């Protein structure tokens, strides 16, 4: 099991998530603790760089994270949410 850590900006972004996004966000954290390799590459040209995991019913949430394979830690560097209501 991997230790998941949030950077300060990612903490602020997570706190700004709407309430109805939180349960799927928690599920995404569970996924990162177990299988961080499931994320997509942030930049397809950089296989050792950042990754992304989508969450939310319409996949409008995105966790961007760092997980070099030699680490036992997953570093969440951004949490974004696209408001589809407007």
């Amino acid at each position, binding site marked *: 099991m991997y230790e998941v850590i949030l*950077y300060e900006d990612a903490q602020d972004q997570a706190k700004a998530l709407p309430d109805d996004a939180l349960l799927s966000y928690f599920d995404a954290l569970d996924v990162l603790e177990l299988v961080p390799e499931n994320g997509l590459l942030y930049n397809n040209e950089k296989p050792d760089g950042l990754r992304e995991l989508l969450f939310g019913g319409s996949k409008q949430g995105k966790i*961007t994270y760092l997980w070099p394979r030699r680490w036992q830690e997953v*570093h969440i560097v951004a949490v974004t949410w696209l408001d589809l209501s407007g």
Partner: protein
Amino acid sequence: MTNAAAVAVVATAENVRSVGYRVNVTAEPVQPFFTPAQILPPELSPTAIRDALIDEEREEFLRAYHEAIAEADRTIDLTRVLEVLTNYQRIAWLTKHQGVEVHRRMLDQVAHAQRTGEAPPGSVGAAEMRALLRKRLAR
């Protein structure tokens, strides 16, 4: 007779006013379904992506884009160009969504973590963040 041909018979540049059209029309065939604008939405345009990216990511995009264009020129195949545009459009979206300043800080912190293996000061564990947000949900 097709509609386009029928228009050609009744409406010309010379008689267009006299046959009851309020604006000039054309009998030229048109292709309404395959315009470049429909194939490439605005957010996938190379200039929109370039303008949204910051510093080193803009340089990386331009290098990849020019390489893909050169490849397309050789192969007559745009697949690689579209892959590059799609790849960097996602990065451009994140840059715009979280703001240039936060995005730049994110990249700096990532570079530092990759060098040292250390998270920046102020980082917290997911368990702590989860507990905080669960408290909010319980209210």
